[in-house]
């Protein structure tokens, strides 16, 4: 225990004062410095800069562990005592939540709850939006009560994950090597690009990209791409196996770096890609476009959940952290890399007008756009691929998902790779 001295009292008051200016519920922050929260998740948002800033702003220590999404799922499901905060994707939540390893979060303790975008609350970006297929975040975002292990479809006041980061994914192309407009997912299997196409070798995401292509080719329309039947899986993978045997693909990629190298070296001119990979190619001075397509985007979202074992001061600290997360600094930090924040309006305070205009509103950049690490992302006059937040997130066709037939799909996927 920290000894109660005048000096410590003053420090404590200072921290308390600081937390009130953040607009977050204040806790008596004397011992909070001793708190260490262990967070794990995929690399996307597990950034050391965030941990440093937490130490500065909130005073406690955040330990980050980055793992791939398979390991994240396993750890959240099997080792509930190995973490305090899980930073996971919504489709992983669908698998993990029923195990009871995470605890529901009381939305009345979340200061900015009302400002969280509709996608994570009632599923609608605007009142007119239709809800996309797959594991849409709001379908697994709420539970019935403090001890719930089910999902409910209305805003029950108990959240499973607090949304933190999300984006809309599409195909990346090399416009200089293709030389004509690309506007459909079906172009991935266009024989014109034989030997120059690629798809990612991560089954749960790859199958969704495949489904977008199959639908775009007019071969089949899925009742729900996010939950295929065995026949639909056979059909989808069959079409791609045939294309593979005809030499459509140059390679498959599994890691971020591989996708960047394939594109930058010109081995591949069209492939599934993630937004920061596009940036990495562009930063080498090579033209690369995150091509918006008519059929829409494949989207994903992540959030943070609390371990069921977390209570007392640690839990208070975790709520403090969540409130701080939604308060804008992290949002700005993520949005300046091309992701979206769950509470965009607070992030705006941490971005300048040019950045906000470019990243969120889809306006022309008035000056060089740099990411938080100082790399130039766009020059004056450029517009973000896909346009504004509403245009991009409004055109989501499906969310990353986990299917009932997941194991069957995985086996078929292995056959596809071996074919």
């Amino acid at each position, binding site marked *: 225990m920290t000894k109660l001295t005048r000096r410590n009292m003053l420090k404590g008051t200072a921290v308390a004062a600081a937390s009130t200016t953040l607009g977050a519920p204040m806790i008596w922050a004397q011992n909070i410095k001793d708190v260490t929260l262990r967070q794990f998740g995929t690399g996307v948002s597990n950034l050391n800069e965030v941990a440093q800033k937490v130490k500065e702003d909130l005073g406690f220590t955040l330990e980050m562990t980055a793992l791939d999404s*398979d390991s994240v799922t396993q750890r959240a499901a*099997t080792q509930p005592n190995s973490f305090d905060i899980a930073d996971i994707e919504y489709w992983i939540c669908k698998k*993990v939540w029923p195990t009871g390893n995470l605890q529901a979060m009381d939305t009345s303790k979340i200061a900015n709850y009302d400002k969280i975008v509709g996608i994570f609350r009632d599923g609608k970006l605007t009142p007119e939006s239709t809800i996309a297929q797959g594991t849409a975040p709001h379908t697994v975002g709420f539970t019935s009560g403090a001890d719930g292990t089910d999902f409910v479809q209305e805003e029950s006041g108990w959240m499973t994950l607090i949304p933190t980061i999300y984006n809309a994914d599409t195909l990346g192309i090399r416009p200089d090597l293709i030389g004509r407009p690309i506007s459909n997912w079906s172009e991935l299997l266009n024989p014109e690009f034989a030997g120059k196409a690629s798809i990612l070798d991560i089954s749960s995401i790859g199958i969704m990209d495949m489904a977008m292509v199959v639908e775009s080719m007019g071969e089949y329309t899925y009742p729900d791409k996010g939950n295929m039947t065995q026949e639909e899986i056979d059909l989808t993978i069959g079409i791609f196996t045939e294309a*593979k045997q005809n030499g459509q693909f140059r*390679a498959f*990629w599994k890691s971020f770096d591989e996708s960047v190298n394939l594109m930058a070296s*010109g081995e591949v001119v069209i492939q599934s890609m993630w937004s920061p990979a596009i940036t990495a190619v562009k930063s080498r001075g090579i033209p690369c476009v995150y091509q918006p397509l008519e059929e829409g985007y494949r989207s994903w979202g992540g959030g943070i959940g609390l371990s069921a074992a977390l209570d007392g001061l640690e839990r208070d600290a975790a709520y403090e952290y969540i409130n701080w997360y939604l308060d804008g600094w992290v949002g700005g930090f993520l949005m300046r890399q091309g992701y979206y924040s769950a509470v965009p309006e607070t992030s705006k305070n941490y971005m300048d007008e040019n950045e906000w205009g470019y990243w969120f509103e889809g306006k022309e950049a008035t000056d060089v756009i740099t990411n938080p690490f100082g790399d130039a992302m766009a020059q004056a006059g450029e517009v973000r691929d896909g346009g504004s937040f509403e245009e991009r997130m409004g055109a989501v066709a499906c969310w990353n998902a986990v299917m009932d037939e997941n*194991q069957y799909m995985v086996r078929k996927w*292995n056959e596809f790779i*071996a074919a």
Partner: protein
Amino acid sequence: MVSPLMAILLFFLVLPVGMILIVSFWQATEFSIIPAFSFENYEFLFGSSVTFRVFMNTFKYAVVTWVFTLLIGFTVAYFLAFHVRTQRWQIALFLLCTIPFWTSNIIRMISWIPFLGRNGIANSALMSWGVTDRPLEWLLFSDFAVILAFVHLYTLFMGVPIFNTMMRIDKSLIEAARDAGANGAQILWNVIVPLTKPGIMIGTIFVITLVMGDFITVRFMSGSQSANVGRLISNDIALLAYPSAAATAIVLLCTVLIVIATLLRFVDIRKEL
């Protein structure tokens, strides 16, 4: 009384393999492993045509790599052992062969990728010499690339044991053969090759086991487009299907053991050493 060697073998070899064997009969769902006794993993493995295709592919890589590493390894060892006269030069040249091994396995493999690529050095050289007028696509992300990388990575494992046995060959045997009227080819085939067999066999075991157990070279050099048994196992592990991975590993282990047992029928390594 267990001797220290036995204890080490028990703890680091028998115990882990035993664990893998036990787990191979278990079952798994997406996030739990269920201790059970079921042949389901093996049934799936032997019932799937993919397994056979992948095993055949693994053998193909092993055999082709073996042929090339043997040809190159034998030639290099022969040159070092019989054509280089002084021991100083033998040692110097031998060390030269090992220099690439000062870098990591992965780096040596990955450095082929930009070299063989569509716009890589190999293709631009071929085109500027007028050998081809368009880039050769099969140089990279193909079986050719996989085998090239294997040969590059593992030739030394073949060459060193062969060189080692060649150095022990009594030079007077060669003189005797020459005195008896044998020509160069006859000496090579009737004297040197038979006496080098143990080295060839040790090299063969190294190369076969390394290639059959590999997964990362196949993944990178084929651009994830081909599969061998190692990749099946690594895919299963990534998807948390440990029992299924364990069953595949056991089948692979048995296959490799059978191959080695067969090889050892040809040469009694212990006697020859």
